[in-house]
């Protein structure tokens, strides 16, 4: 029931008085209206723009946000109004819906923004009035298409391959996207070159060359240099065959590949040669053989792999199949009509060219396409009149479907352009996102090393951390909690990969040496400042939580001049470890293995030989400037 009719309900109920004298039974009691019926004006504040409306207006649609009790969530007691932090321009249309019962779609707004507003206010888009429904649907469809294009572009085929791909997959990718590898590019250009060579050879074959000595007639070059041309042809066909077989081998779905247009063209391009080889050289079949040679020209279609424009053209023709069909049909109709007319008009004339209706077809086609060869002309007056009508109508009939085809082509072409642009932009966007992500993860690691994770027992520490926003503090706290939960710490990619590499090498030795080195270290230096690992700003997504991996203890504090030090020097250096807030050119990468005893704060270095390759994690606030590399190798 339309909500507007609700206003007439009281009247309909009042009119029920007319039934009373007729009533056979007593009337039921009317429902008690609990809340007061006083109508009040509500103020709805949308981003500063105040809308006022009767409460009844909003109550008309009780299953929307404004009509239900959901709006109480947005009620502001102090200002006695409902506040929504949304677009005020859009809200105008929403409110109009309540007032008039019809939802209109504002043409100048973005369809997605509009949909979002509708979703927020709990209004189903189906109730858009008829006046705006078509426009809304069109825009929505357009948007959907664009979105699907975007997702397709995202899953572009030039994303890097998964690391464990078979050579077959790699080969297929190389064929489909030549610019993914140099080899593929080379192959691409070589095939292109050979296609061109083959086509040119086909053409040049027929050019008349100077005759060989002793003969008068001009020979086509193909016959004069037949051996050379044959060798060229063989070479081209070999390349094409090789390419085709490679593609067939690499194709993920061979049946589908064999049915595809490009593969059919490939086959057609190379078949004539093989058939020519097989066929005997006698005269009877050589006529057919010559016909086969015509198919060699189809090699030129192989260029469509190399040219996007050609592909677009082909796709356009395919998508305009109906228009082309219509064009053909209407042309055929017109040709038949005019040919018949011309034939009968010219029938009486002696020695006329219009010997039959099919013969007149030629005249009609030539006239309608305004070619006008002049090999057939009407002589009678009637023939001339109809001939002129024919040429005038020909222009019209042909001109009609052409704009449709052109617009189709332009649309597809622009779509392609947009897809390419999307892909380029995507790369830039992803790079930017990656950079931003790195920034935040680095921030956390930096935060750690600067002692953010410890209690602020010193003023200097507190000062360092002052210039971070509360958001950052809370975020870092959260990451810290995660570390505590999993008993692992965040680190960077490089350190991790290094550890992966070196762990296999120095596994055995590491155990003993690391422990001893650490013990040495711990004995010499102050307990809290001991293990300071070099951390590098890194992508923390490569955090080390591989419990099974036994990682080496590599301590690496980066500094420009100093190279790997011996253990003794390390002992000496550890005294130099200082708290230094300003140093920013390193970050500590801490990798730990989930062994609980190892994760107690730095002081406790349980010498647990049972746990091989334990890395102590140190949450020290100290770090040095010098590069000290402690490796157990």
């Amino acid at each position, binding site marked *: 029931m339309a909500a507007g*009719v609700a206003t*007439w309900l*009281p*009247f309909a109920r*009042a009119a029920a*008085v007319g039934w009373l*004298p*007729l009533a056979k039974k007593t009337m039921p009691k*009317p429902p008690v209206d609990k809340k007061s019926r006083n109508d009040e004006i509500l103020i709805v504040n949308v981003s500063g723009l105040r809308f006022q409306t009767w409460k009844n207006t909003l109550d008309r649609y009780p299953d929307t946000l404004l009509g239900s009790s959901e709006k109480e969530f947005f009620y502001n007691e102090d200002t006695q109004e409902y506040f929504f932090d949304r677009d005020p321009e859009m809200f105008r249309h929403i409110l109009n819906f309540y*007032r008039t019962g019809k939802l209109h779609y504002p043409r100048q707004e973005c369809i997605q923004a509009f949909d979002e507003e509708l979703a927020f206010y709990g209004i189903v888009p189906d109730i858009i009035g008829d006046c705006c429904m078509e426009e809304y649907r069109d825009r929505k469809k357009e948007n959907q298409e664009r979105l699907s294009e975007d997702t397709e572009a995202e899953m572009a085929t030039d994303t890097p391959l998964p690391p464990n791909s078979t050579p077959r997959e790699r080969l297929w990718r190389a064929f489909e996207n030549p610019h993914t590898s140099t080899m593929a590019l080379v192959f691409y250009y070589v095939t292109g070159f050979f296609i061109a060579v083959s086509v040119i050879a086909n053409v040049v074959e027929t050019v008349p060359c100077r005759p060989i000595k002793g003969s008068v007639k001009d020979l086509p070059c193909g016959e004069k240099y037949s051996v050379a041309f044959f060798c060229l042809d063989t070479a081209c066909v070999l390349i094409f065959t090789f390419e085709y077989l490679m593609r067939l081998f690499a194709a993920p779905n061979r049946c589908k590949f064999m049915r595809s247009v490009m593969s059919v063209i490939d086959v057609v391009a190379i078949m004539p040669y093989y058939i020519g080889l097989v066929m005997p050289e006698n005269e009877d079949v050589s006529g057919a053989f010559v016909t086969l040679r015509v198919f060699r020209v189809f090699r030129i279609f192989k260029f469509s792999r190399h040219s996007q424009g050609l592909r677009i053209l082909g796709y356009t023709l395919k998508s305009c199949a109906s228009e082309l069909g219509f064009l053909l049909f209407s042309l055929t109709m017109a040709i038949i009509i005019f040919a018949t007319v011309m034939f009968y008009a010219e029938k009486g004339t002696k020695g006329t060219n219009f010997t039959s209706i099919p013969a007149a077809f030629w005249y009609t086609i030539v006239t309608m396409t305004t070619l006008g060869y002049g090999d057939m002309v009407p002589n009678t007056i009637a023939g001339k009149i109809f001939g002129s009508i024919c040429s005038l109508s020909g222009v019209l009939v042909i001109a009609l479907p052409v704009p449709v085809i052109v617009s189709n082509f332009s649309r597809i072409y622009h779509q392609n352009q947009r897809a390419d642009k999307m892909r380029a932009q995507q790369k830039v966007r992803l790079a930017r996102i990656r950079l931003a992500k790195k920034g935040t993860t680095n921030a956390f690691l930096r935060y750690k090393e600067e002692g953010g994770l410890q209690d602020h027992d010193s003023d200097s520490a507190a000062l360092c951390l002052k210039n971070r926003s509360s958001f950052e503090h809370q975020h870092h706290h959260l990451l810290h909690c995660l570390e505590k939960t999993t008993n692992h710490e965040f680190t960077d990619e490089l350190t991790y990969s290094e550890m992966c590499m070196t762990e296999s090498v120095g596994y055995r030795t590491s155990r003993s040496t690391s422990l001893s080195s650490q013990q040495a270290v711990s004995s010499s230096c102050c307990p809290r400042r001991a293990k300071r690992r070099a951390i590098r700003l890194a992508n923390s997504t490569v955090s080390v939580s591989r419990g099974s991996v036994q990682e080496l203890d590599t301590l690496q504090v980066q500094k420009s001049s100093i190279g790997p030090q011996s253990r003794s020097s390390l002992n000496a250096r550890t005294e130099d470890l200082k708290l230094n807030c300003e140093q920013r050119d390193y970050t500590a990468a801490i990798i730990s293995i989930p062994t609980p005893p190892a994760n107690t704060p730095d002081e406790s270095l349980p010498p647990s030989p049972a746990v091989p390759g334990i890395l102590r994690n140190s949450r020290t606030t100290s770090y040095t400037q010098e590069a000290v590399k402690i490796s157990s190798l």
Partner: protein
Amino acid sequence: MGLVMGTFSMQSKQVDYRKDKVDDDLEMTMVCHRPEGLDQLEAQTNFSKRELQVLYRGFKNECPSGVVNEETFKQIYSQFFPHGDASTYAHYLFNAFDSAHTGSIKFEDFVTALSILLRGSTREKLQWTFNLYDINRDGYINKEEMTDIVRAIYDMMGKYTYPVLKTDAPKQHVDTFFQKMDKNRDGVVTLDEFILSCQEDENIMRSLQLFENVI
């Protein structure tokens, strides 16, 4: 081909011609009607200013032109009774509302009738009901008129009722009614007979009070 084009253009001219006439009709119906002042209406009816405001807002929203014609009235009333056919009864109702027989209900008519039905005295209500039943406004309700009314009411029930509606149910209903109302057995019911009989019936009296707080 030129002939073809010519005939097509001729056709379109004709269509335009007809469309102009339709536009004229539209023009006439767009005439707006404004009700008398709020004070006058308050004096004439038993509603307060506030109530009149609420009523008018709803009325104006549904009928921006200020008048309701019979078609619209029928449509609106039918919305409340989707099971059956309410158009006949709506027709009688429309005539009852449209006391001046102008063919359209203005806000004053609307509010006057509502005032009687909701805030009027018992006698006024019964008088209004009598007017409703008296289709030809001759002062008497005869059996045919009553049968029409009752049949219209039963039409609103629709086909699917429990117990199943018999074809002579309206007639029986009318007979019962006449037995009760027609005191002097002359085959017609006058206003006084009607009012008297209704006042004697307690059920009717009690029911009349039920509809007071509709607004």
